Protein backbone atom coordinates (compact mmCIF):
# COMPACT_ATOMS: atom_id res chain seq x y z
CA UNK A 1 0.00 0.00 0.00
CA UNK A 2 1.39 3.36 -0.96
CA UNK A 3 1.67 6.03 1.70
CA UNK A 4 -0.74 8.94 1.58
CA UNK A 5 2.05 11.15 0.28
CA UNK A 6 2.84 8.76 -2.55
CA UNK A 7 -0.83 8.42 -3.48
CA UNK A 8 -1.07 12.22 -3.64
CA UNK A 9 2.10 12.51 -5.72
CA UNK A 10 0.84 9.81 -8.11
CA UNK A 11 -2.22 11.96 -8.68
CA UNK A 12 -0.17 15.07 -9.44
CA UNK A 13 2.13 13.19 -11.80
CA UNK A 14 -0.82 11.59 -13.60
CA UNK A 15 -2.24 15.05 -14.17
CA UNK A 16 1.08 16.14 -15.74
CA UNK A 17 1.19 12.98 -17.83
CA UNK A 18 -2.32 13.45 -19.23
CA UNK A 19 -1.52 17.03 -20.24
CA UNK A 20 1.77 16.00 -21.89
CA UNK A 21 -0.14 13.38 -23.87
CA UNK A 22 -2.89 15.83 -24.85
CA UNK A 23 -5.49 13.79 -22.92
CA UNK A 24 -7.44 16.77 -21.64
CA UNK A 25 -10.57 14.82 -20.70
CA UNK A 26 -8.52 12.40 -18.62
CA UNK A 27 -6.74 15.34 -16.98
CA UNK A 28 -10.14 16.80 -16.17
CA UNK A 29 -11.17 13.52 -14.53
CA UNK A 30 -8.14 13.70 -12.24
CA UNK A 31 -8.95 17.36 -11.54
CA UNK A 32 -12.50 16.28 -10.59
CA UNK A 33 -14.30 18.95 -8.56
CA UNK A 34 -11.24 21.03 -7.83
CA UNK A 35 -10.82 24.76 -8.24
CA UNK A 36 -7.92 26.15 -10.26
CA UNK A 37 -6.74 29.70 -9.87
CA UNK A 38 -3.69 31.66 -10.90
CA UNK A 39 -1.76 33.48 -8.20
CA UNK A 40 -2.37 37.20 -8.50
CA UNK A 41 -4.83 36.76 -11.36
CA UNK A 42 -8.57 36.80 -11.87
CA UNK A 43 -8.91 33.44 -13.57
CA UNK A 44 -10.83 30.75 -11.70
CA UNK A 45 -11.72 27.36 -13.15
CA UNK A 46 -14.16 25.17 -11.25
CA UNK A 47 -14.65 21.47 -11.91
CA UNK A 48 -13.80 19.03 -14.65
CA UNK A 49 -15.89 20.50 -17.47
CA UNK A 50 -14.45 23.96 -17.04
CA UNK A 51 -10.96 22.53 -16.75
CA UNK A 52 -11.29 20.49 -19.95
CA UNK A 53 -12.55 23.59 -21.77
CA UNK A 54 -9.77 25.71 -20.27
CA UNK A 55 -7.08 23.25 -21.39
CA UNK A 56 -8.57 23.09 -24.90
CA UNK A 57 -8.53 26.83 -25.39
CA UNK A 58 -5.18 27.42 -23.65
CA UNK A 59 -2.91 24.69 -25.00
CA UNK A 60 -2.03 24.07 -28.62
CA UNK A 61 -1.99 20.51 -29.85
CA UNK A 62 0.65 19.78 -32.46
CA UNK A 63 0.45 17.29 -35.34
CA UNK A 64 0.90 14.30 -33.04
CA UNK A 65 -2.06 15.34 -30.89
CA UNK A 66 0.13 16.44 -27.97
CA UNK A 67 1.49 19.81 -26.81
CA UNK A 68 5.02 18.35 -27.23
CA UNK A 69 5.80 19.05 -23.62
CA UNK A 70 7.39 17.22 -20.73
CA UNK A 71 6.26 18.50 -17.33
CA UNK A 72 8.72 17.98 -14.51
CA UNK A 73 7.27 18.34 -11.03
CA UNK A 74 9.93 18.40 -8.32
CA UNK A 75 10.71 19.45 -4.75
CA UNK A 76 7.41 18.16 -3.35
CA UNK A 77 6.45 19.06 0.20
CA UNK A 78 3.37 17.09 1.21
CA UNK A 79 1.53 17.65 4.47
CA UNK A 80 -1.21 15.17 5.41
CA UNK A 81 -3.78 15.81 8.13
CA UNK A 82 -5.04 12.32 9.04
CA UNK A 83 -7.80 13.50 11.35
CA UNK A 84 -9.23 16.02 8.91
CA UNK A 85 -8.72 13.72 5.90
CA UNK A 86 -7.14 16.62 4.05
CA UNK A 87 -3.69 17.30 2.69
CA UNK A 88 -1.68 20.00 1.00
CA UNK A 89 1.28 19.90 -1.34
CA UNK A 90 3.58 22.43 -2.84
CA UNK A 91 5.74 21.62 -5.84
CA UNK A 92 7.85 23.33 -8.47
CA UNK A 93 7.15 22.65 -12.09
CA UNK A 94 9.20 23.14 -15.24
CA UNK A 95 7.75 22.62 -18.69
CA UNK A 96 10.12 21.55 -21.46
CA UNK A 97 9.09 21.83 -25.09
CA UNK A 98 10.57 21.02 -28.48
CA UNK A 99 8.99 21.28 -31.90
CA UNK A 100 9.78 22.40 -35.42
CA UNK A 101 9.51 25.97 -34.16
CA UNK A 102 11.90 25.86 -31.20
CA UNK A 103 14.68 23.53 -30.09
CA UNK A 104 14.35 21.64 -26.82
CA UNK A 105 14.25 24.12 -23.95
CA UNK A 106 12.41 24.99 -20.75
CA UNK A 107 9.54 27.32 -21.62
CA UNK A 108 7.74 27.80 -18.32
CA UNK A 109 8.50 27.40 -14.62
CA UNK A 110 6.55 27.98 -11.47
CA UNK A 111 4.94 26.53 -8.42
CA UNK A 112 1.71 24.71 -7.66
CA UNK A 113 0.02 25.00 -4.28
CA UNK A 114 -2.50 22.18 -3.98
CA UNK A 115 -5.00 20.94 -1.44
CA UNK A 116 -6.62 17.51 -1.33
CA UNK A 117 -9.46 15.74 0.38
CA UNK A 118 -9.74 12.04 1.07
CA UNK A 119 -12.89 10.42 -0.34
CA UNK A 120 -14.13 6.83 -0.59
CA UNK A 121 -12.31 6.70 -3.91
CA UNK A 122 -9.03 7.87 -2.47
CA UNK A 123 -7.33 11.24 -2.50
CA UNK A 124 -8.83 13.90 -4.72
CA UNK A 125 -7.54 17.31 -5.71
CA UNK A 126 -9.59 20.06 -4.02
CA UNK A 127 -7.79 23.18 -5.17
CA UNK A 128 -4.75 24.31 -7.11
CA UNK A 129 -3.16 27.74 -7.15
CA UNK A 130 -0.61 28.12 -9.94
CA UNK A 131 2.15 30.66 -9.57
CA UNK A 132 4.06 31.27 -12.78
CA UNK A 133 7.55 32.45 -11.95
CA UNK A 134 9.73 31.84 -15.00
CA UNK A 135 8.37 32.65 -18.43
CA UNK A 136 10.19 31.45 -21.52
CA UNK A 137 9.13 31.13 -25.13
CA UNK A 138 5.56 29.95 -24.64
CA UNK A 139 4.40 30.88 -28.16
CA UNK A 140 4.51 27.22 -29.36
CA UNK A 141 2.40 26.17 -26.36
CA UNK A 142 -0.61 28.38 -26.95
CA UNK A 143 -3.14 28.13 -29.76
CA UNK A 144 -1.93 29.72 -32.98
CA UNK A 145 -4.42 32.59 -32.98
CA UNK A 146 -3.13 33.68 -29.57
CA UNK A 147 0.50 32.89 -30.32
CA UNK A 148 0.54 34.89 -33.58
CA UNK A 149 2.03 38.34 -33.51
Amino acid sequence: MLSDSDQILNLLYELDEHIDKGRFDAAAEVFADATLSVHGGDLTVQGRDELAAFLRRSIRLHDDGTPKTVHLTVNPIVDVDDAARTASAQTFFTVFHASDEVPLQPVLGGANFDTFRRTERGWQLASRVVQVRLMGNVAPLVPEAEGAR
Partner: protein
Amino acid sequence: MSASADEIRDLMFEYCWLLDRGEIDAVGELMEHATVYGEGGLVLHGKDEIAGMFRDRAIMYDGIPRSKHLCTNVILDIDEDAGRATARSVYVAQQEAPGFPLQAYIAGRYRDTFERVDGAWRFAERVYIVDLLGDMSAHHRPADSG
Protein backbone atom coordinates in the same frame (compact mmCIF):
# COMPACT_ATOMS: atom_id res chain seq x y z
CA MET B 1 4.81 1.73 5.39
CA SER B 2 6.21 2.54 2.02
CA ALA B 3 9.60 0.86 2.19
CA SER B 4 9.04 -0.69 -1.22
CA ALA B 5 8.27 2.68 -2.76
CA ASP B 6 11.51 4.11 -1.42
CA GLU B 7 13.54 1.09 -2.55
CA ILE B 8 12.11 1.29 -6.05
CA ARG B 9 12.70 5.01 -6.38
CA ASP B 10 16.25 4.49 -5.13
CA LEU B 11 16.87 2.02 -7.97
CA MET B 12 15.59 4.53 -10.51
CA PHE B 13 17.69 7.35 -9.13
CA GLU B 14 20.75 5.12 -8.75
CA TYR B 15 20.56 4.49 -12.49
CA CYS B 16 20.90 8.25 -13.10
CA TRP B 17 23.77 8.64 -10.65
CA LEU B 18 25.73 5.76 -12.15
CA LEU B 19 25.12 6.76 -15.75
CA ASP B 20 26.13 10.38 -15.17
CA ARG B 21 29.30 9.27 -13.38
CA GLY B 22 30.19 7.11 -16.37
CA GLU B 23 29.99 3.91 -14.29
CA ILE B 24 28.71 1.88 -17.18
CA ASP B 25 29.55 -1.52 -15.70
CA ALA B 26 27.60 -0.60 -12.57
CA VAL B 27 24.62 0.42 -14.71
CA GLY B 28 24.80 -3.04 -16.26
CA GLU B 29 24.92 -4.66 -12.83
CA LEU B 30 21.97 -2.58 -11.62
CA MET B 31 19.99 -3.92 -14.60
CA GLU B 32 21.55 -7.37 -14.58
CA HIS B 33 18.20 -9.16 -14.61
CA ALA B 34 16.38 -6.66 -16.75
CA THR B 35 15.24 -6.48 -20.34
CA VAL B 36 15.31 -3.00 -21.83
CA TYR B 37 13.39 -1.81 -24.84
CA GLY B 38 14.42 1.25 -26.85
CA GLU B 39 13.52 3.14 -29.97
CA GLY B 40 13.61 1.33 -33.28
CA GLY B 41 12.90 -2.11 -31.84
CA LEU B 42 16.00 -2.22 -29.65
CA VAL B 43 15.82 -5.06 -27.12
CA LEU B 44 18.67 -5.77 -24.72
CA HIS B 45 18.88 -8.25 -21.92
CA GLY B 46 21.27 -8.46 -19.02
CA LYS B 47 24.31 -6.55 -17.93
CA ASP B 48 26.65 -7.24 -20.84
CA GLU B 49 24.21 -6.15 -23.53
CA ILE B 50 23.01 -3.14 -21.56
CA ALA B 51 26.48 -1.94 -20.57
CA GLY B 52 27.66 -2.65 -24.10
CA MET B 53 25.00 -0.39 -25.57
CA PHE B 54 26.11 2.55 -23.41
CA ARG B 55 29.76 1.83 -24.13
CA ASP B 56 29.09 1.84 -27.87
CA ARG B 57 26.87 4.90 -27.96
CA ALA B 58 27.75 7.34 -25.17
CA ILE B 59 30.52 9.85 -25.85
CA MET B 60 32.81 10.12 -22.82
CA TYR B 61 34.97 13.06 -21.74
CA ASP B 62 37.74 11.83 -19.44
CA GLY B 63 35.52 8.90 -18.54
CA ILE B 64 32.27 10.77 -17.89
CA PRO B 65 29.44 11.74 -20.24
CA ARG B 66 29.13 15.25 -18.72
CA SER B 67 25.38 14.65 -18.50
CA LYS B 68 22.86 15.03 -15.69
CA HIS B 69 19.68 13.01 -15.81
CA LEU B 70 16.73 14.49 -13.97
CA CYS B 71 14.24 11.73 -13.22
CA THR B 72 11.01 12.71 -11.53
CA ASN B 73 7.21 12.34 -11.60
CA VAL B 74 7.51 8.71 -10.49
CA ILE B 75 4.03 7.15 -10.64
CA LEU B 76 4.15 3.96 -8.61
CA ASP B 77 1.92 0.91 -8.61
CA ILE B 78 3.14 -1.76 -6.22
CA ASP B 79 1.69 -5.24 -5.76
CA GLU B 80 3.33 -6.33 -2.51
CA ASP B 81 1.77 -9.80 -2.54
CA ALA B 82 2.92 -10.60 -6.05
CA GLY B 83 6.29 -8.90 -5.60
CA ARG B 84 5.76 -6.89 -8.77
CA ALA B 85 5.65 -3.16 -9.30
CA THR B 86 5.47 -0.70 -12.15
CA ALA B 87 6.73 2.86 -12.29
CA ARG B 88 6.16 5.49 -14.93
CA SER B 89 8.45 8.48 -14.77
CA VAL B 90 9.76 11.37 -16.83
CA TYR B 91 13.35 12.34 -17.47
CA VAL B 92 15.22 15.29 -18.89
CA ALA B 93 18.92 14.86 -19.58
CA GLN B 94 21.13 17.93 -19.66
CA GLN B 95 24.73 18.24 -20.70
CA GLU B 96 27.62 20.66 -20.85
CA ALA B 97 30.74 19.69 -22.77
CA PRO B 98 33.64 21.39 -24.55
CA GLY B 99 32.07 23.59 -27.23
CA PHE B 100 28.59 22.59 -26.11
CA PRO B 101 26.90 25.02 -23.71
CA LEU B 102 24.65 23.70 -20.93
CA GLN B 103 21.37 22.54 -22.40
CA ALA B 104 18.80 19.80 -22.32
CA TYR B 105 19.43 17.29 -25.11
CA ILE B 106 16.62 14.79 -24.61
CA ALA B 107 13.40 14.40 -22.62
CA GLY B 108 11.02 11.51 -22.33
CA ARG B 109 9.67 8.77 -20.15
CA TYR B 110 10.67 5.51 -18.53
CA ARG B 111 8.19 2.67 -18.21
CA ASP B 112 9.64 0.35 -15.60
CA THR B 113 8.73 -2.98 -14.11
CA PHE B 114 10.32 -4.21 -10.90
CA GLU B 115 10.33 -7.60 -9.22
CA ARG B 116 11.09 -8.52 -5.63
CA VAL B 117 13.41 -11.51 -5.37
CA ASP B 118 14.68 -12.78 -2.00
CA GLY B 119 13.29 -9.68 -0.33
CA ALA B 120 15.00 -7.15 -2.59
CA TRP B 121 13.49 -5.15 -5.43
CA ARG B 122 15.29 -5.11 -8.79
CA PHE B 123 14.72 -3.94 -12.34
CA ALA B 124 12.81 -6.43 -14.49
CA GLU B 125 12.06 -4.20 -17.48
CA ARG B 126 12.72 -0.69 -18.66
CA VAL B 127 11.13 0.86 -21.73
CA TYR B 128 12.84 4.02 -22.99
CA ILE B 129 10.46 6.52 -24.56
CA VAL B 130 11.77 9.65 -26.25
CA ASP B 131 9.30 12.55 -26.27
CA LEU B 132 11.48 15.55 -27.10
CA LEU B 133 14.79 15.44 -28.90
CA GLY B 134 17.41 18.16 -28.69
CA ASP B 135 21.00 18.29 -29.90
CA MET B 136 22.45 14.83 -29.21
CA SER B 137 25.70 15.46 -31.05
CA ALA B 138 27.85 15.79 -27.93
CA HIS B 139 26.29 12.83 -26.20
CA HIS B 140 25.60 10.07 -28.55
CA ARG B 141 26.95 8.14 -31.45
CA PRO B 142 23.96 7.03 -33.50
CA ALA B 143 23.23 3.34 -33.77
CA ASP B 144 24.21 1.71 -37.05
CA SER B 145 20.85 0.02 -37.23
CA GLY B 146 17.80 -0.76 -35.14
